[in-house]
Structure formats: C-alpha cells, structure tokens
C-alpha cells in the first residue's frame, strides 16, 4: 500500500492544489503547479513559492484561493465552510450586478413615472369631459 508519508505528500499540498483548482473553475485559466521543482529535497513534493502562482486577489473566491495556497486553511472542512459563505459576496461580479441592478431600478422608476403621467392625463381628460358635459347640460337647462 502506498502511503502519503512515503512520498512526502501532505494535507497542506492537497489544500493548495484544491485552491489552484478553484482558481481554474473561476477564471477558466489552467495553472500548472510544479511540486517537484523545489531545491530543498529531490523527489519530494513541496508547495511552490508564492511568486510562481498567478495572482488571485480581486476575483470571486480570491481570498479562499489565496488562503488555500498560503496555508491559512488547515483542513478541507475549513475551505468548505468558507466556500459556502463566499456565495453571498461575489467580488468580481458585484460591480456588474450592482450596475445591472441600477439600470433595472432606473427603468422601473422610468416605467412607473410614465405610468403615473399617463394615469394623470387620463384622469384629467375624464374630469374635463365630465365638466364639459355638466356645462352643456347647465347651458341647455338655462336656455330652454
């Protein structure tokens, strides 16, 4: 049986790989992680230096990706809990969503304003018509 200890793999590397994979899902960009390029020991995997990985700040789930890579999450359970909460705060999309929402709200406001104007004009015309009819009958009664 092959064991993790024999080969130098550990939870830290696994969570780092998970972070890189999340990065790929979010950005669509494939990242190649070289675990065996470190000078510390030959044929033993080490999590690569920060500079060799692409920047993840400012993207959705960015802080989770960074946390996975920097070793801030000790267990996959912590990543899972963080991922569950991250749905509420999409970073990259937030400005787009807010912009869309503003347009939607302004259209709604515009539509409601137009509707109010239309109702007001209709009411005004109806009242005017009613007033004219009243005047007509009044005139008819006084003349004849």
């Amino acid at each position, binding site marked *: *049986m*092959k*064991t*993790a*200890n*024999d*080969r130098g*793999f*550990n*939870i830290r590397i*696994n*969570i780092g*790989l*998970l972070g*890189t*994979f*999340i990065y*790929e*899902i*979010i950005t*669509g960009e*494939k990242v190649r992680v070289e675990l065996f390029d470190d000078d510390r020991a030959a044929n033993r*995997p080490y999590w690569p230096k920060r500079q060799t990985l692409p920047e993840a700040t400012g993207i*959705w*789930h960015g802080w989770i990706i960074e946390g996975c890579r920097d070793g801030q999450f000790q*267990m*996959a*359970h912590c*990543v*899972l809990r963080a*991922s*569950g909460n*991250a*749905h509420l705060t*999409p970073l990259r*999309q937030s400005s787009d969503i807010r912009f869309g929402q503003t347009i939607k709200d302004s259209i709604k406001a515009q539509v409601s304003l137009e509707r109010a104007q239309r109702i007001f004009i209709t009411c005004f015309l109806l009242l005017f018509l009613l007033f004219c009819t009243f005047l007509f009958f009044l005139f008819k009664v006084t003349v004849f």
Partner: protein
Amino acid sequence: MTTPFLDISGNPIPHGNILGSGSSALVLLQGDAAVKFPLKCLWTDIYKVQAHTQKPKYEQEVCRRLEDSPYNSRSNGVIRCLRMFDDSTHLGYMPNSDLQSYLTKFRPSLNLQFSWCVEITRTITFVHDRCLLVTDIASCNFLLDSDYRSNFVISQRYLFFHWGLI
C-alpha cells in the same frame, strides 16, 4: 475497425468501445458501465502486463475505502464503483467528459461555478476523512455526469495516510 489494444482473453478491441486509455489501464463502455481493464497491447511484454494487472487491486482498495456507510451518502462526488473483479473494475459511466474539456470549450454560469467549487471541496473533505490524499487534484480528474455534477475519478493517484502521522 480494431485497435492495437487487447482484452483479457487476448482478443482485439473494436475502436468504438474505448472511452479512454492511460499508461496502465484502458476504459471501455459496456452497457451502462465504464469498465477499467489493465492495459494490454499487441507489443506489451509479459512483465508489463503483470505489473498492470496489479493496479486494479490498489484502486479497488481505494474504492472500498470510499464506499458509503449505510448512514451517510457523502461519496456522491466520487465515481461510483458498481462491481469489482480480479482483473477489472466496473465504474459508473459519465457521459459529459471531463471538467477540463468543458472549461476549455464553455464558460460556466456563476451558479455552476459555485456548485462545482462546493461539490469538489466537499469531495476532498470526504476523501481526507477516509484517510486518503490525492496527489493530482486537477480538472482532468473530475468527470461530469448527465446533470453536470462533478465526480472524482478513482485512480492510482490516491495515497493512504494516518491522521497522527501527517
């Protein structure tokens, strides 16, 4: 049209049945199952064939470790192992290829991205809880089922560990 690959009894395998091949295994579609055989070609020598036939045993050990207990069903994110034989493993068939091919062709919606992130993290959590590590967490190792849910493949890339030692 036949291929250079041979089945267990030494007969050539038709081209249409092959789902994929690796360095040591061949995956064929048989009914509703993807059957994983040790790789055997016309030119493969007997020692290599013997080495390849040892590998399904290791993968079956991993399958057993990842099996559900009657009280939980957390193994949903791992490809289901239907049957195990000495020389082959029958796995659930995933019709929508792998996640890597999907991501190169399409841009998934925000909801799909989120559900994949959570599903995959949940699967890794489950794998760790069963005292296994995966040496290659990559998009090519996640296959998509008919509902586009990601399923982790069972391969040689799993390592056993004990929580106290790592």
